[in-house]
């Protein structure tokens, strides 16, 4: 036994000595820096999984958040698998998602054709891209929308539940876009997209015009002014901005106004996102939102809701634990209490775990 242990020790020492003396090879994709041989980056895989438990204090689901919908249940979000590859100036991204969050809660089932309505394609992002020059890029395919502050992937949001602005706005826009970077501080995207939001196939044509102006006035502050407008999809104007004011404090803002192409209605809204890092593993954040639906003629009056969400992000390696409490208060009785009686307010608590890889 002692001999075996001794041999094992010598083996471990030999292996570790060799490994320690040989520095890890550093790959370089050529995307950043020029101080190593430019090589085509390998096929890169990344993704996340998320799960949650939610309890609405009425005893049933009330708040119409896009994800974290299940009441008093340990439920799954999605497994998200992203692939990307760049060879020279050409690249692609393919992102697949499985689970409620990654299927019917965020993408269409099928392509709209009869008999295909029950099939999920699982596609969150599927596009090809080409760098015409260092400053000009062309991209085409099915892409996450350029509108709004929050995103579908749980790794891209601080809060786990979603805002009314997110739920009401576009999730994806399929089309073609050109992006020109004037400098690190200013870029402009313009594109033409399918007639409807969130579809793999256009209903009639490719008629939604979209544009995004990005400005970064000072270090840490980025603002995006977005517009998407079309005869079928209507018109949405959106401002999304975030400012890392100090090492610990970040402030985000999202404001949008939407007018449908036909029939009146639409919405306005604004959300503020202050976040404070209290240690290298714990960050606290708030989301305060005001959301108003516009009146439809004289038949449907305007309504509004205010929502306050307090969230913590606690990092433990690749896992982020997200405890969250949320209070919604509406102008009208749009929620129901524990007896099923209409009420103006709803409150919920949830805890989620997100693993990113």
């Amino acid at each position: 036994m002692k001999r075996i242990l001794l041999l094992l020790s010598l083996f471990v020492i030999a292996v570790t000595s060799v490994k320690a003396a040989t520095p890890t090879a550093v790959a370089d994709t050529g995307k950043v820096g020029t101080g190593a041989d430019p090589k085509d980056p390998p096929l890169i895989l990344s993704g996340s999984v998320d799960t949650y438990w939610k309890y609405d204090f009425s005893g049933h689901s009330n708040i119409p958040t896009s994800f974290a919908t299940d009441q008093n249940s340990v439920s799954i979000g999605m497994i998200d698998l992203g692939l990307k590859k760049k060879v020279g100036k050409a690249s692609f991204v393919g992102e697949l998602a499985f689970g409620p969050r990654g299927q019917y809660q965020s993408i269409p089932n099928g392509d709209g054709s009869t008999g295909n309505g029950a099939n999920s394609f699982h596609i969150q992002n599927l596009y090809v891209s080409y760098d015409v020059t260092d400053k000009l890029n062309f991209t085409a395919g099915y892409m996450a929308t350029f509108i709004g502050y929050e995103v579908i992937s749980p790794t891209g949001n601080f809060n786990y539940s979603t805002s009314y602005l997110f739920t009401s706005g576009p999730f994806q826009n399929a089309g073609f876009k050109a992006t020109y970077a004037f400098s690190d501080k200013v870029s402009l995207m313009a594109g033409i997209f399918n007639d409807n939001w969130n579809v793999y196939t256009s209903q009639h044509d490719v008629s939604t015009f979209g544009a995004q102006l990005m400005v970064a006035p000072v270090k840490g502050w980025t603002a995006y002014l977005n517009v998407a407008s079309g005869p079928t999809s209507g018109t949405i104007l959106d401002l999304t901005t975030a400012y890392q004011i100090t090492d610990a404090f970040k402030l985000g803002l999202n404001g949008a106004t939407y007018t449908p192409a036909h029939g009146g209605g639409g919405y306005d809204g604004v959300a503020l996102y202050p976040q404070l890092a209290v240690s290298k593993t714990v960050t606290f954040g708030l989301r305060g939102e005001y959301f108003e639906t516009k009146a439809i003629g004289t038949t449907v009056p305007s309504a509004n809701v205010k929502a306050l969400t307090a969230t913590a992000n606690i990092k433990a390696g690749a896992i982020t634990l997200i405890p969250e409490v949320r209070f919604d208060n509406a102008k009208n009785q749009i929620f129901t209490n524990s007896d099923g009686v209409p009420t103006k307010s709803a409150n919920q608590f949830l805890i989620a775990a997100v693993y990113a890889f």
Partner: protein
Amino acid sequence: MKKILLIIVSLAISGMVNAQKSLLSVDENNKYIYYQVVDMPGIKADSLHKNAGLFMMDMYPKVTLQMTRSGISVKDKFLTYTSLIKHENGEMAYTLNVECKDGKYRFWVTNFVFTPYEKDRYGMFVPVNGKDISLEKASDKLQKKDVEGYFEQTGAFCKQLGDKLKKYMIEGKPKQPKEDKPVKKIVTEKW
């Protein structure tokens, strides 16, 4: 006996973890630095300076070089990667300085500043805006395992850079292999 063997194994493993970090030293301003003085017996300073210039122009074609009386410096970045499934998780900015004298040259890499990456809505990894962390403060602001990875990759990058610089200093600009090598013809009629 078992305890002693366990201690030996533990020491060996911790030695491996710290090996890459130990490639970096700390300078008089308490900044991390990768510093080497390389003897080049019989080679004049002018020649070494010229080779250093060739290295810089080849390696940093799109970056502005800072020429000083005693040497050349350049600021650039390299990508860092996650360990398990490799994808970008940040970029490390650095400054490389090269100085030459008759028979020797020195170079040092310092001013390391790390910017973490996050995955954006399009599935791409992009810098987190406004989060620049000097390597000296990384252990206060980032998780221990991540910091170890950044030290390891920084040490490895600096060593690679130093090896490439040495090749230029000895040979000048390395000759490119001939691309159009004649293909050997085989006559199949007679066999």
